[in-house]
């Protein structure tokens, strides 16, 4: 038996998708997550699709475990070694506060490492990496004694300008590794300039190391697949558990990134030049832009109050999802970011939710099947109670002087306006007009809201992928192996020193290919791509410009000028600088999956649903598994896990690969 398995471990559910490498058979399931026993939950998921651990040859998982630990501040104590005089780097931060007009907010988050566990080491480099003051033996000895006395098991080292010269950090690392099991060096974790962001990333890594090591080691023991055991990372690929243990922050966005990675494959296979992903879950919605088959990348993201900097897919999250609570204030009506969460959840789930949510509005409009049991497993299922949704929306309707159905339609419209703002943001950042994009909708709520969102934003092409609700798990399954590193180099483009550049590139190639080689990939299978982070001399922000080797400085300059013009509307003749280099090593996946309709479907039914401009109309409820030909809205297309709303004026058609395509009905 030879099954390849992908799982996405969310806060509520663990999705699993498996494919048989010989026959191409697929199996999927959804089981409750178990934050207290993550490895048990993974084995439960394998059992839920009728497999034994011995049947599995490759197991890739994405998880929110590391992110949750950071956001909820459930991190073990660590120590920080910084340059003397700069040991308060975390506490100082960047000065900016979150809210302009409201003082009634929590104070700035305390530093991840408290003052008494920060050590100022006497040493100094300048920004070229030249040594101004080397650490003395006596000083190193004092530092080691201090760490030993502190009792921590994990230490972060983040020295000033270490991105330009790692020598001092290496020296310290050698000493520390003799006395503590976990050491994170900033020039390895995030070799980029700006001391606060680098120190923050390095300390988060150090704090996550014991957590990651704990559960990944358990997983290695109970599911001994060797190199077949992989973890999905934030940059849209997978790495071995060994690498993830060393660099746990790569898992920070693994779940959302997996959904985007699966979207990239669909964008490529359908030949869609521009795609916006729309992953609407229970509490958050994630969006990402894909242009010409590549997902947008970013390098910094806030986790709670703390910046985490590393190359990752530019997934933009907003705090609005199916469980978001509808709020009514004098400023108007809004949804989120407060959420009914998993418990109690939307009122219509009948678990004690007393406040109106987006899901309740969808229930009132007839989009949810009152007979279906959500979250399938026996005894845990949820049945939608439309009357309970009416009960919580009615008071809002009364205040507005509207009836409940119009109010529900309005709530959906406001929710979609909130989502549209997220789409706007990710496209503006890239100088793309979002209306030219196809909308790729997945997650529990994506297919339900896609057409309404398209209407409000002016999009005209929607793709609902096969297995849309277990899409992140699918992304894990079809993932490439990859590793990315970004490094500050600050090389002026005029008179570019090729030798220095080559040395940087060689070092980055070594860093990025090492994890893949260790997982058994052959050198020949690894593809490497190069991006220069370019800026004009007087700029500080950079623009990512891809290039090939050998580097042609004139071509790079021309590409930068063209891209800058496209993004910002102008280009100038000023000198340019290569501020940083981003190198990605990737082993393309050969796993290709066609999700065949597993279920048997059901005969078309009718239900009364309401849409903008068409209230209470008889609507066909179709089974996605048996869908054929063109379906004109109004219609609801449902499978076991998700609901696609096709409003009047839209039509849906099933594509051969199992995807649904929705466009406006020709007039």
């Amino acid at each position, binding site marked *: 038996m030879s099954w390849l398995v992908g799982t996405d471990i969310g806060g509520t559910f663990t999705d699993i998708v498996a494919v048989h490498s010989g026959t191409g058979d697929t199996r999927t399931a959804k089981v409750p997550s178990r934050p207290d026993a993550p490895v048990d939950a993974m084995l439960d998921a394998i059992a839920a699709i009728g497999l034994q651990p011995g049947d599995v040859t490759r197991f890739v998982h994405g998880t929110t475990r590391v992110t949750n630990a950071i956001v909820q501040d459930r991190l073990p104590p660590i120590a920080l070694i910084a340059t003397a005089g700069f040991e308060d780097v975390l506490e100082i931060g960047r000065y900016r506060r979150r809210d302009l007009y409201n003082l009634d907010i929590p104070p700035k988050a305390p530093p991840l490492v408290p003052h008494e566990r920060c050590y100022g080491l006497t040493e100094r480099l300048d920004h070229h990496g030249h040594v101004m003051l080397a650490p003395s033996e006596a000083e190193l000895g004092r530092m080691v004694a201090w760490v030993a006395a502190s009792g921590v098991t994990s230490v972060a080292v983040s020295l000033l*300008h270490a991105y330009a010269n790692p020598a001092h950090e290496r020296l310290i690392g050698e000493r520390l590794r003799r006395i503590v099991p976990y050491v994170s060096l900033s020039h390895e974790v995030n070799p980029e300039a700006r001391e606060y962001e680098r120190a923050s990333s390095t300390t988060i890594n150090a704090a996550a190391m014991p957590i990651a090591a704990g559960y990944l080691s358990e997983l290695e023991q109970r599911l001994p697949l060797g190199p077949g055991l992989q973890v999905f990372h934030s940059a849209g690929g997978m790495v071995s558990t060994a690498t993830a243990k060393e660099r746990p922050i790569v898992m920070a966005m693994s779940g959302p990134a997996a959904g985007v990675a699966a979207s990239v494959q669909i964008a490529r296979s359908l030949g869609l030049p521009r795609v916006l992903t729309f992953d609407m879950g229970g509490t958050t919605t994630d969006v990402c832009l894909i242009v010409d088959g590549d997902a947008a990348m970013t390098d910094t993201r806030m986790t709670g109050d703390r910046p985490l900097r590393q190359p990752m897919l530019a997934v933009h999250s907003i705090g609005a999802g199916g469980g978001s609570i509808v709020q009514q204030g004098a400023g108007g009506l809004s949804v989120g970011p407060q959420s009914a969460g998993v418990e109690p959840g939307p009122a219509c789930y009948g678990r004690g939710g007393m406040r109106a949510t987006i899901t309740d509005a969808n229930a009132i409009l007839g989009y949810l099947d009152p007979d279906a049991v959500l979250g399938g497993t026996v005894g845990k299922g949820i049945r939608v109670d439309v009357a309970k949704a009416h009960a919580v929306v009615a008071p809002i309707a009364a205040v507005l002087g509207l009836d409940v159905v119009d109010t529900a339609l309005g709530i959906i419209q406001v929710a979609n306006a909130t989502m549209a703002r997220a789409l706007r943001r990710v496209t503006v950042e890239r100088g793309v007009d979002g209306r030219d994009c196809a909308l790729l909708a997945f997650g529990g709520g994506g297919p339900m809201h896609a057409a309404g969102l398209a209407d409000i934003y002016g999009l005209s092409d929607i793709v609902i992928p096969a297995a849309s609700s277990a899409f992140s798990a699918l992304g894990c399954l079809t993932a490439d192996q990859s590793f990315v590193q970004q490094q500050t180099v600050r090389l002026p483009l005029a008179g570019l020193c090729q030798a220095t550049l080559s040395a940087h590139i060689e070092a980055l190639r070594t860093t990025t290919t090492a994890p893949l080689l260790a997982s058994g990939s052959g050198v020949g299978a690894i593809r490497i791509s190069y991006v220069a982070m370019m800026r004009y001399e007087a700029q500080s922000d950079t623009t990512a410009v891809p290039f090939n080797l050998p580097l042609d400085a004139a071509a790079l300059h021309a590409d930068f000028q063209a891209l800058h013009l496209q993004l910002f509307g102008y280009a100038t003749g000023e000198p340019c600088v290569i501020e940083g280099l981003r190198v990605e090593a990737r082993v393309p996946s050969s796993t290709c999956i066609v999700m065949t309709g597993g279920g048997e479907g059901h005969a078309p039914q009718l239900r009364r649903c309401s849409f903008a401009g068409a209230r209470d109309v008889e609507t066909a409820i179709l089974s996605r598994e048996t869908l054929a030909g063109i379906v004109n809205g109004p219609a609801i297309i449902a499978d076991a896990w998700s609901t696609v709303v096709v409003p009047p004026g839209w039509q849906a058609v099933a594509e051969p690969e199992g995807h649904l395509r929705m466009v406006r009905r020709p007039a």
Partner: protein
Amino acid sequence: MTVIQTAALLDPFIVEVIRHGLSAAAEEMSLVLMRSARSPLLREAGDLSSTITDASGGLVAQGRDIPVHLGAMAYTIRELLKVHPLERFVPGDALIYNLGALGGNHLNDVKVVRPVFVDGVIVAFTLSLAHWPDVGGSWPGSYLATATDTFQEAIRIPPVPIASAAGVNQAVLEMIKVNVRDPVSAEGDLLGQIAATACAERRIQDLCRVYGTDIFLRTIERLHDLSEAEMREAIIGLPDGVFEGEDSLDGDGAGAAGPRIHVRITIAGDEAIFDLSGCCDRLPNFCNTTPFIAASAIIYAARLLSGRDMQQNAGALRPLTIITRPGSVCEPGWDAPVAAGNHETSMRIVDAVIRSMEHVVPHRLAAGGPTTSGLLAFAEPMPGGGWRLLYEVHGGGEGARHDRDGSPATRVHMTNTSNTPTEMLEATYALRVERQAIRRGSGGSGLHRGGDGVVRAYRVLAPKMLLTTCVERMVAPPYGLQGGDVGKTFQIALERNGQVSALPGKANLFLFKGDLVTITTCGGGGYGVAG
């Protein structure tokens, strides 16, 4: 594009959807400018703001930017329209100006404004403000501590077209470039501002197309009304009465009581009058404000007192009356220098309001904090005649509140710009940061402690540099509330050839290689009596 069918004529959902669209467009302007601007002040520190107004110049939506800008921008277009009426605009126009008299704050804050035409009619304006690191004048950085009039401060730009449908007006651009010390940055920043206003223009035109111009215009009115109702309700929640509060500027730093900043607040029913007539007379330096800066401070403070989250727009201002006295520091005449008053005196007005309400709504307030820009501006002469400018602001300890300690190392109230990371600073400027640390124990004690300030030390590596200091809270310390202790004050020290001397908070001076400038920032005041 799809036209949304609206069942009701102006249902609350359309209002909310258009509100989202407008706020997103304003935020998008800031994003466009921050991404494309040239100077670190905009890109790293974010010293810029974006707003959208209605056709009469009333504020409709704003980005999440800098309150001192945003408050003044509520007047910037309204005042412009008095000298440049609606009928003089044509589609594609963008005007540039920085005059204090036209709803301005200080000359460094350069505005670009663009009318938004739909079917030949102006439905809105988009406005981008950016703090340029230099706008000419007597001293690099355009902060002249001893300025006696505004003509010494910087180039004064009246409203002139910087772009039209035909493109950028090169003549005006050249005129400006030859008058500033960093023309490359100025041009980059300006092009970014023009792009930002054009971007928001398209978004507003889209909203009008989708929902109908009529619905759009009525929605704006509705948003004004909603915010007005919210503000009136908030004022009703405050007790009627007259409340007075004051604070002082540092003055000459010689220890004598500094210039007085005073406010007299009259709450009557659902209206509030903020009378600043009790403030000192016009100052013989750059700490004066325009009436718009003063109003900006009041708008911010009123929002604090309201304790409510509301769409900040012209409607929210309707219940407020703001009075300034001609000849005072807040209405000194249009020839007065105002570079520092923009962020120093405005902050002191906020402090005066907070102190006036100490016993009325203490739970909504915070004790005194770093209500100053804490500015050190370094200028290095470059070969060939140009200057390299570093405009570095410094946060301090936030004042404590009724339920918590103040945060360390932060910006408060009217400003919200960032520091420049040491690793970026050293790579760009002939300076070395020798230390950046929390100033432990600098927050005032109390039931809740004030936050701690910071210490940052700069070593000069260039043969010669110019330094501008613009720092308050060196004499008058951040106050405590409800019995809390004051925070420690700001200090600036210059170490030269082993000799340490104190520097004044408002000065222009020369630095030489090897000098060490150390700024020690204030702690926040405490709240309540320690148990």
